[in-house]
């Protein structure tokens, strides 16, 4: 009696599990490029996963990529908005406190980046790490919508229609964002002497 329903649920769970396992690391990177903070990126991915499974877990597996990307983008936007509000308060309050702690020194980020790519591995690995770090840095510098379109279109391998649906914009806008992102990235990497 409950056999077909149970089988369908099991298939759906297996499909969702496989989808999440396949997308989770890319989603983390995607969120990290936008939020520039690993903890915030992990929270965003977890939030997106929970929302997908709670609200759309029983949908056909073919719809998961578009739904998940849409949810993830919304979660990232929410995180950015929250951070903007928090930063506004911090700025306001820090104006009344002595400015001698220097917690958010931009050089820390640069040092962390250079630590991640230190040359304690063979030359090839070093070069690869350097290239990856440069690519990730340039991707993180892209305007949010361009990065979003570029990553969905070429990394998630979604077609133009799916990308447009996930971003809530026209297909023409997706093409424009992708083209500009590719041009910007190509120019930036060329300037650094990186050849793909």
């Amino acid at each position, binding site marked *: 009696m409950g056999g077909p329903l149970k089988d369908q649920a099991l298939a759906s769970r297996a499909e*969702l*599990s496989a989808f*999440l396992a396949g997308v*989770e690391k890319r989603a*983390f990177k995607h969120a990290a490029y936008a939020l520039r903070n690993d903890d915030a990126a992990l929270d965003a991915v977890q939030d997106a996963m929970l929302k997908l*499974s709670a609200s759309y877990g029983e949908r056909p597996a073919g719809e998961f990529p578009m739904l998940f990307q849409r949810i993830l983008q919304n979660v990232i936007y929410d995180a950015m908005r929250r951070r903007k509000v928090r930063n506004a308060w911090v700025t306001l309050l820090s104006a009344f406190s002595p400015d001698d702690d220097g917690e958010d020194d931009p050089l820390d980020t640069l040092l962390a980046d250079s630590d991640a790519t230190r040359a304690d591995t063979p030359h090839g690995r070093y070069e690869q790490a350097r290239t990856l770090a440069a690519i*990730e840095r340039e991707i993180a510098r892209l305007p949010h919508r361009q990065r979003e379109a570029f990553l969905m*279109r070429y990394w998630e391998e979604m077609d133009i229609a799916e990308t447009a649906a996930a971003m809530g914009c026209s297909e023409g806008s997706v093409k424009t964002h992708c083209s500009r992102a*590719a041009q910007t990235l190509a120019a930036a990497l060329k300037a650094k002497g990186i050849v793909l």
Partner: protein
Amino acid sequence: MNEQEFASKLAGHLCVAAHTVEDEVAQRLRGARERALAVQRRRGRLARLLAGNRLRFAFGPVLRSAGSMVALLALLAAGDYWATWSRVASLEEVDAALLIDDLPIDAYLDTEFKTWLSRESQS
């Protein structure tokens, strides 16, 4: 190199970057995935409970008695409607016959009718 080729090569590098995430990050992602699947499992169980046999077992007797009540009320309403309709129809026949002076002879033989007629004509 066109946009598509460039983007494909770049995506290849990004895939390498994604697969070299730290172990701690990978573990936290796995934990997040398991929590998400647990949520789906709970919701799936609830959906099956609502759609499956347990619903029928839980609400079957209530639905059956409600159906019987509805059928009984419908029968009573239909009976009442039919009785009212037949009474009105017979009164219509008598009224029409009185108006056109075409009463059957049985009417004049009915003593009650005679009494009623004389009382009505006096008043």
